[in-house]
């Protein structure tokens, strides 16, 4: 687009962000400060993710943007259009076709490849922030790998609720060294981060932090020996494609208590339906 540099950010800023990214990849899970810029969207809408994407995007890349698993919600549509206009890159909604995937709240159901990069939008990069108010202290805890406090939180959950009640942003240990917030993805997606072939980059714009998980890195969800980590999923098949292993959204369909459970990953659902899988909703439509 005329008047703008490729992918909106100026080259010096991209260079600064890439340096932070290199550091982040070198120390998996460690938060690297960076000079976050003002972006033409509000904090909380993905200012961190969009800066990371802008810095790694090349002219030949194909971009996919996910918001809560969907490709067609406001955040996903506007960020995809933003890069189509400012960088002129090709965009897609198909996970398999994308080389860079910017995401908020989900990891695609389809296994990512080693030629793909996934960029997470992160509201709060500090996993200990609800437990220890001082950032000076949390930095010291990270430096000394002093993570007993995080387990105190898990202990408290079990003591109060009988189980670990964290359902999203479930803390993980990266490379057996750094405690990391995986951004608000559901705990369901945590196992996908472990040994993922794709490069995982995390950008927190308001908090001005970047961190990363290099390909094939050990990512373990915290737990107790007698209360192992387990994923939670609504116990239904997808209403549209019948998938029984995908993460589901609950959709209210009417004001008489009607509920529909559908795949949160819209691309995954569409591909399954194209391949001939049908859920209960699809069968009803066919009957009518």
């Amino acid at each position: 687009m005329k008047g703008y540099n490729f992918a909106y950010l100026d080259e010096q800023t991209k260079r600064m962000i890439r340096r932070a990214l290199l550091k982040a990849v070198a120390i998996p899970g460690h938060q690297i400060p960076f000079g976050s810029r003002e972006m033409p969207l509000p904090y909380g809408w993905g200012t961190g993710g969009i800066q990371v994407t802008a810095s790694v995007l090349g002219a030949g890349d194909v971009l996919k943007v996910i918001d809560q698993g969907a490709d067609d919600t406001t955040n996903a549509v506007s960020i995809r259009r933003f890069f189509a206009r400012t960088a002129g890159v090709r965009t897609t909604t198909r996970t398999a076709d994308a080389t860079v995937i910017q995401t908020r709240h989900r990891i695609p159901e389809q296994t990512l490849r080693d030629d793909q990069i996934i960029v997470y939008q992160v509201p709060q990069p500090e996993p200990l922030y609800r437990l220890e108010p001082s950032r000076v202290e949390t930095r010291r805890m990270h430096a000394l790998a002093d993570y007993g406090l995080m387990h105190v939180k898990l202990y408290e959950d079990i003591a109060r609720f009988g189980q670990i009640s964290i359902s999203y942003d479930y803390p993980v240990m990266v490379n057996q060294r750094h405690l990391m917030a995986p951004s608000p993805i559901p705990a369901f997606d945590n196992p996908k981060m472990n040994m993922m072939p794709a490069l995982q980059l995390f950008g927190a714009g308001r908090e001005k932090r970047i961190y990363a998980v290099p390909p094939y890195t050990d990512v373990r969800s915290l737990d107790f020996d007698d209360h192992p980590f387990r994923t939670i999923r609504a116990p239904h098949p997808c209403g549209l494609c019948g998938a029984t292993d995908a993460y589901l959204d609950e959709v209210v369909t009417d004001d008489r208590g009607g509920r529909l459970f559908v795949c949160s990953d819209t691309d995954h659902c569409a591909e399954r339906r194209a391949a001939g899988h049908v859920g209960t909703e699809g069968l009803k439509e066919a009957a009518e």
Partner: protein
Amino acid sequence: MSDETLLSARGLCLAFGANRALIDVDVDLWPGEMLAVVGESGSGKTTLLNVLSGRLTPDGGAVWYRDPNGKLHDVHAMPAPDLRALHRSDWGFVHQDPRQNLRMNVTAGGNVGERLMAQGARHYGDIRALAIDWLGQVEIDAGRVDDLPRTFSGGMLQRLQIARTLVTHPRLVFMDEPTGSLDVSVQARLLDLIRNLVTRLKIAAVLVTHDIGVARLLAHRIMVMQRGRVVEAGLTDQVLDDPQHPYTQLLVSSVLQA
């Protein structure tokens, strides 16, 4: 008693501006021994405790700690991770105000279990069983294990703090006026409890207090401090029954005889 000291300090000096808080203080502590540091307010007792435990760096002098393998460590030359590890395993710190040490928004069980989890305990059932066991040892009803500390009385908080500190069986505990903020009857019970636990677990302790009675009841040896100097030191009974220094004489005579 072994002839090797657990903790020893030589020539400790520390000044806060013109205020000299510690002047050439020597300390020796043997395993299993309770050492009381007494003196008036502002005499440098708490500063000494903070320097001994590595929380404050002295201007001069050094503190050595002998680990279970017999190796000596210079406390102030130790790398920060090692000192931190020491503080959460071999050492304990009991504050005058338990709120400084406890997490007030975490249940009693979580508070007791934190040091265990920091040391790598990852079995919920074991941690909880040990926490309940320790609540029993400090005479807190096991039914309170899931209650928040803010529902506890002052004496219970102090006992909870002691359970939290001793759960990892430290070899050395620093106590800063552990009974300072409690009323007399609660104090007596707590002193009894501390004495029993310390004797049974063979814990060495440095106890800072302004209360001669507490020192007499708990401590094997005593150090009397005045304006940053140790004016008299020795066996507790000896020092308190036959004080030599005028300041010690004043301290002893100022205690009301019951």
